[in-house]
């Protein structure tokens, strides 16, 4: 039993790569990363599986690599999900305290959470997360644990993330095919934010933007709790596609150019510099303008940020994000992207760094691994709380990471 709990694995079936990270929990509850496996993803577009057979093969490869590196056998995983079909909203639950002395008990808290979770999802959607935000006691905010306090009307806000059941099942099925258990599914954005944001940043209010291959996930923390989440089915793939189309070069070459000469801002010095592309024999074949390359990239990336910003503005969240914006995901490697983010979001931008985890530093430093590392962290938190709850009987904390899964 104990052995089983020690190893936590996270798998992200991404658009550009499939990534498995294995972590180990020590006796004090500290987490260290002991293995990483990755495989180029071929059966995924925009964060969703389009070719199950190919994807399964890639998943097996990644798992094999991770198991070999960590020298353990993975039995169950935390699975990251994403895609344009995910939706989120905030729901409020109300409960009137009936006891004579108006003291709030554990049962009242359970009731109000139950009320908040009574939501009407579209028929074909299922719940991924219901994240508790804050309690309101008689309209007063800032109550984190109301048990033992006096009041009449207890309210709680829940942030709900849901997605199309069939598409979620596709990913779960795929992993089950490889003889693994899926412990929970986790929204990729939530996982990444766990990996890159520390406690202070969450308290201060922070935005995490994970610009991946096929999708861009963003999560806004306000006062230490997840306030808002979103997905945009646009990512680094679109940048490559734009380049391939605009510069009239093959997609693979566009991808190379994006990595070697990519820049997120326009007007970076010389407007007339040309890059010579060479054929496989080293002969120059074509010249492309650096200026065009930068404008095409910059416009796409700017648009991604602008769409995220527009969404946050609609939610009225921008002024709460005092710690600024943190970027991760493969596309955050593009040079100049921080300056672009600062321009668009009008707040300080920094690269998200994985914190509070020890282990393979080479893996921790890569922005692409943030999601998979976050999944392991999610798993460690989830296991820690469930262990605690079984001892103390408090299931309250567990609600933070409630599992609504395995319902197929």
């Amino acid at each position, binding site marked *: 039993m104990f052995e089983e709990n020690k190893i936590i694995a996270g798998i992200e079936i991404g658009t550009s790569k499939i990534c498995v990270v294995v972590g180990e929990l020590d006796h004090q509850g500290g987490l260290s990363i002991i293995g990483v496996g990755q495989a180029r993803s071929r059966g995924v577009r925009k964060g969703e599986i389009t070719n199950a057979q190919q994807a399964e093969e890639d998943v097996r490869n990644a798992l094999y690599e991770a198991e070999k590196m960590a020298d353990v056998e993975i039995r169950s995983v935390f699975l990251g999900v994403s895609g344009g079909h995910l939706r989120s909203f905030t729901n409020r639950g109300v409960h009137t305290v009936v006891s004579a002395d108006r003291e709030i008990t554990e049962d009242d808290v359970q009731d109000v959470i139950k009320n908040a979770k009574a939501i009407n999802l579209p028929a074909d959607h299922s719940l991924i997360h219901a994240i508790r935000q804050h309690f309101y006691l008689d309209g007063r905010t800032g109550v984190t644990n109301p048990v033992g306090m006096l009041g009449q009307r207890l309210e709680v806000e829940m942030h709900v993330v849901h997605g199309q059941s069939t598409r979620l099942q596709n990913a779960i099925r795929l992993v089950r095919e490889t003889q693994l258990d899926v412990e929970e599914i986790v929204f990729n954005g939530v996982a990444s934010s766990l990996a890159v944001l520390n406690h202070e940043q969450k308290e201060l209010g922070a935005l995490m933007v994970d610009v991946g291959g096929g999708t861009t996930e963003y999560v806004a923390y306000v006062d230490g709790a997840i306030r808002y989440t979103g997905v*945009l089915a646009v990512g680094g*793939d679109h940048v490559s596609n*734009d380049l391939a*189309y605009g510069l009239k070069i093959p997609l693979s070459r566009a991808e190379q150019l994006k990595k070697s000469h990519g820049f997120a801002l326009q007007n970076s010095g010389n407007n007339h510099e040309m890059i010579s592309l060479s054929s496989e024999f080293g002969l120059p074949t074509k010249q492309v303008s650096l200026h065009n390359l930068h404008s095409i990239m910059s*416009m796409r990336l700017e648009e991604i940020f602008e*769409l995220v910003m527009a969404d946050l503005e609609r939610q009225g969240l921008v002024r709460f994000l005092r710690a600024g914006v943190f970027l991760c995901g493969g596309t955050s490697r593009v040079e100049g992207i921080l300056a672009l983010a600062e321009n668009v979001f009008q707040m300080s931008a920094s690269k998200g760094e994985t914190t509070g985890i020890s282990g393979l530093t080479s893996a921790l430093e890569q922005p692409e691994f943030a999601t998979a590392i976050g999944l392991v962290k999610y798993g460690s938190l989830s296991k820690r709380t469930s262990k605690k709850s079984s001892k103390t009987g408090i299931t309250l904390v567990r609600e933070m990471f409630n599992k609504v899964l395995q319902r197929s």
Partner: protein
Amino acid sequence: METPHLLKMEPGNNGSPLPAIRIFGVGRAGGGIVNGLESPEFDSSVLGVVDTDASALAGSRASVKIHLENKLLRGLGSGGDPERSRVLAEEHFATLKAACAGARVVLLVGGLGGGAASGILPVLARAAKESGALALAFVLLPFDCEGNQRAQLALAALKSIRESADGVVCLPSQKIFKLTDENTPVLEIFEATSRFLREGVRGVWQMIAQPGVMPVRIEDLCALLSCSHAECAFAFAEASGPARSRDLAEKILLHPMLEEGRALDEAGWVLVSLKAGRDLTMAEVNRVVDEIKKRSKSAQKMIVGTAMDAACKGQLCLTVIASRDARDGLRDAIPAIKVENTQTPVTLEPRQAAEPILTSLKSRGNKSRQVQGQLPLNIVAKSRFDKSEPTLYQGEDLDVPTYFRRGAPLN
């Protein structure tokens, strides 16, 4: 090919008084530039300054001083808020309009990004137009190191000026910074940017106010400046001595403001204005124009003007304005352009070319012109995402390249 104009010396240009030109400096930078225009050439009666700050106006030698003020400002100026100064300018709209009355051309000068110019310039341009003048704006954009707040204000202001003025010449200060030595003091760099803009104002003023044998028509100038979507590049150079025309051509082609001539390569429109004493020879004009023509092969239009000034004996001054990517703009500004004009890539007949521009300027407000429809050809654009579900956002398909949807030009 210039002979018709040389022969047809228009008496009106030599005898009649100069076309009434007013130059307005707006804000601190604009006021400074206007003050710096030399006195013999620029009579103080043509100069005007507009500011929200009384102290800046006090030191100016301009004859028209308009102080925008209301109680809310408490004499502190606009405080860097363009919205405040815009409202203020709207309040004083009648005053501004009166100041522009009687002028044929109003040149507006200002540095964008601060409070005063960003707010006032668009309103002043509108006032000038309403009073019957053509409004040409000369604006400075802030340095990159002045912060993105200023940069964004400046870009927003530039956009609204483009909408309200007939023509905009925009000079990003950062460009000048790159040209100067690393150890140049801040003050000198700011002075240098003002000087560049001042040269531009003087060059344009010269073209209009001192017409010579080949005058540049104001309408041409406005058409050139207004239909460029991107910024105009302009350069000013002078030379003297026996080989002055060759020197001048060399200087202008290596001019840093034209990116060592590369701005000419891509220019859609080029305007060349020469000023010299009575000793100017046709061969000299020919040589300079030829050199520029060689460089700007893709230019669809080239306008050449010369001015005579007895004062600059032995000297040859040249102003070149190149507007990049005017092709998109041309379509907007000149719907009725004749086919024979577009077939010859370089035309040197300003007369002939000017006619449709003039008509188009008049009928610009007319929305009912016919536009040829274009079939949406984005078959390749989505290639990678053809088979997946389209990502729609407010009716836009995000899978189509952003630059394609925004219609951004690629060179």
